[in-house]
């Protein structure tokens, strides 16, 4: 268990910058947004962020495109039928694990 002073300064810079990016807009922005365009934009952002993060990264998430594709397919079908987040997430992982024994 060692703690290097130089590493500690790096961590302080990392943590400081990351917190400020999160805190400043979230804390200072108090107005209710009225612009329909900006409101619509903000409404779509979370879905767009998640879609961009998931595709194509999901296919490289298990170290094998085949097992990842099986997991993704299972997640897609379960999500299509409105299953809870935890069920979809863990079933995808279990499917990828099982697929790993086949491929």
């Amino acid at each position, binding site marked *: 268990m060692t*703690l290097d002073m130089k590493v500690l300064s790096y961590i302080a810079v990392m943590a400081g910058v990351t917190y400020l990016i*999160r805190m400043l807009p979230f804390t200072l922005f108090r107005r209710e947004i009225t612009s329909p365009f900006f409101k619509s934009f903000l409404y779509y952002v979370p879905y767009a962020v998640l879609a961009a993060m998931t595709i194509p990264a999901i296919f490289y998430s298990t170290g094998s495109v085949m097992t990842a594709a099986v997991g993704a397919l299972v997640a897609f079908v379960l999500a299509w039928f409105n299953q809870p987040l935890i069920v979809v997430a863990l079933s995808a992982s*279990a499917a990828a694990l099982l697929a790993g024994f086949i491929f």
Partner: protein
Amino acid sequence: MRSPFVKGLYHGIPIALGYLSVSFGFGIMAVRAGLSVLEAVLISVTNLTSAGQAAGVGIIAASGPYIEMALTQLLINLRYALMGISLSQKLDDKFHTPQRLITAFGITDEIFAVSSAQEGKVTPAYMYGMIFISFCGWSLGTLLGAAAGSILPGALTDAMGIVLYGMFLAIIIPPARQHKSVLLVVCLAAAFSVAFYYVFTAVSSGFAIIFSAIGASLIGAWLFPVADEAGKEAA
């Protein structure tokens, strides 16, 4: 019904499990880069972000300048500023400056996505519950990965890599199935992301997500404006 804090904890379970597996990988990576277990855990408890931490460890390992560290974190985590503004529109009246200062620490892609997907406003207690369990998963995973990464069978840690993405699909598919507008935005964002991944490879992953998401959301807002919170169903 459950208290808001417990509801937040419950909604945070898949996030925490996903984080456990992702941060496990981060712990392994940090130790391989020459950091101690304590340093790896310290990064996770103070940063609570995946891409930024991974890039940060690379800079520490290369003894890069502090300004590079600051700029890299700024660019990779810029999306949190956007998410913060978006989430600020969903806050319950119980949110004052102290509650905002605390909750700001826990704005991550997943916490933002799950809390945004809630009907109506969110309370501080709900956010604290979700942030608390996610934070525990993230910190514990880092500790386990850093301390014992080589003990678990590889097949299991590999399969855990898909957990978070499975959760993402569970968040975006039901609304995309229901609303043509969300379907369009999701497909556009995915298409842009694929283009960045395979064609415009010079763009780093953080920027690729920002550009894809902003582009898709702008087109969505232009073609399908949402009237108000209640008008979501009509979109």
